[in-house]
Structure formats: structure tokens, C-alpha cells
């Protein structure tokens, strides 16, 4: 359990820093989390983060990284739907790290 303070609000997180309540998320939360990891979010990051939020909205789960990679490829093209590109954006693992910034739970199957 933990908390983060973003924009004057205290938000609950789990022990790994994922937001407890999906509805607490704002873009500032993503910026804050990225900063903690020493990362500056670019449009390319946001493309993935927004994609994940839409995916969750539709399917109610955070996708496994393989599924994410494939789905990104379908939507944004093969130059973005590959592990290398996604790992460059999210060095801690595209599914794990991007889901965290997107305010989603950790992908099912990630231990």
C-alpha cells in the first residue's frame, strides 16, 4: 500500500505503485509517475498510454505485452508494433510500465 500526491490530491496505490482506483487517473498522474522513473513523456508515450486506456475501457483488462504489441501494430503500424520500439519507450517493460502510467492494474499474468 502507498500513496502519491498529484495536483494536491492524495491517491492510493498498491505496493508496486499502481493506482488503486482507475477513476483517480489524470494525465498529471502519468507525468508524475514517469518523472519518478526519470522519464519525460513524449507524444509517442502518450499514444501507447491512451491506447491502453481505450483497451481497458473496452475489455476491462490490461493486455499482456504480446497482445499489446500486436494491437499497437494493427492500429499504429508495424514500425510501432514491435518489442524494440515499445521497450525503448518503456524500458521497464511496455505492458507493466505503460499500464502503470495509464492508471490500469498490472497486466494479468505478470508476476
Amino acid at each position, binding site marked *: 500500500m502507498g500513496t502519491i500526491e498529484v495536483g494536491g490530491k492524495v491517491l492510493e496505490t498498491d505496493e508496486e505503485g499502481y493506482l488503486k482506483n482507475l477513476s483517480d487517473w489524470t494525465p498529471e498522474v502519468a507525468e508524475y509517475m514517469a518523472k519518478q522513473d526519470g522519464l519525460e513523456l513524449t507524444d509517442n508515450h502518450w499514444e501507447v498510454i491512451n491506447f491502453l486506456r481505450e483497451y481497458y475501457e473496452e*475489455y*476491462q483488462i490490461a493486455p*499482456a505485452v504480446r497482445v499489446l504489441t*500486436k494491437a499497437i501494430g494493427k492500429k499504429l503500424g508495424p514500425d510501432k508494433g514491435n518489442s524494440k520500439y515499445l521497450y525503448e519507450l518503456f524500458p521497464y517493460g511496455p505492458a507493466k510500465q505503460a499500464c502503470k502510467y495509464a492508471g490500469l492494474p498490472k497486466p494479468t499474468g505478470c508476476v
Partner: protein
Amino acid sequence: MSEVTGGVEVEEEIGGTVKKFMFVNRKAPYGTIYALEGLEVVLISAAFDQDVSLVFLDDGVYQLKKGQHTKAVDMKNFSPTYRALEGYDIDKLYVEKESLEERGLTADDLVVDVEVLTAEEIAKLMAEQDVVLSF
């Protein structure tokens, strides 16, 4: 955290034997944790590139019923997640005809495309599996 699911290279290196896994879903979606846990196991199993199929029978057919409203039971409506299975390359979904009919349902009442099979046909499929897990 192991992002095993991302290892395209790993898949090529290891290969290995593909077994036939069948997950049998028999219980109503809410009231117990079986349906949700079963679905999670299925999603995880997708990472291992096995031959996976799902069967829905008895009250398990309700897991796929359209129009679930779960606010009153204070559980997440996870039925949209069955529609994500296709993206996980899990496309063998079988529903028992008798179970549907007993509950006044047809394939049109379900959130995903399924193959409706008789109990006899499902029994036959089951016999062909390497592993059958029931939830």
C-alpha cells in the same frame, strides 16, 4: 514480473510440445470467484502458446450472457473480457446446447461468437484433450 508473453525470440528458441488444454466453465459468473479466476488462468495460459479451448456449460453459460449489470453485487462486470480472447489467439469457444436451451438462451444472447455443440460432441472433444481444467 516476467514479461514472458513478449518473448518472440524465446518462442522461437524453445518451441516445445503443444498440448491441448480445455478449460471448462460450469459456474455462474458472480457469487463465487471461479468464473473470474478461471478466465484469468485462461489469459495467462495464452502466454505459453498451447492449444487452448474453452467450454461453457451448466450455469457457466451465464458468464457469456449479454447485458450483465453488476453494480448491485459490487463486482466488476468482466464479461467484456471474453471479447479480448480473440486478441490472445484464443478462438475456440464452445457452448453446450442443452445448457443454453435449459436456460432459454441462444447463441445470440452471448457477448462473443461461439460454437454451440451438444453434450455428446463436447464429451468427444473432451476425450481428445491432454489437460482438462474445470472451474
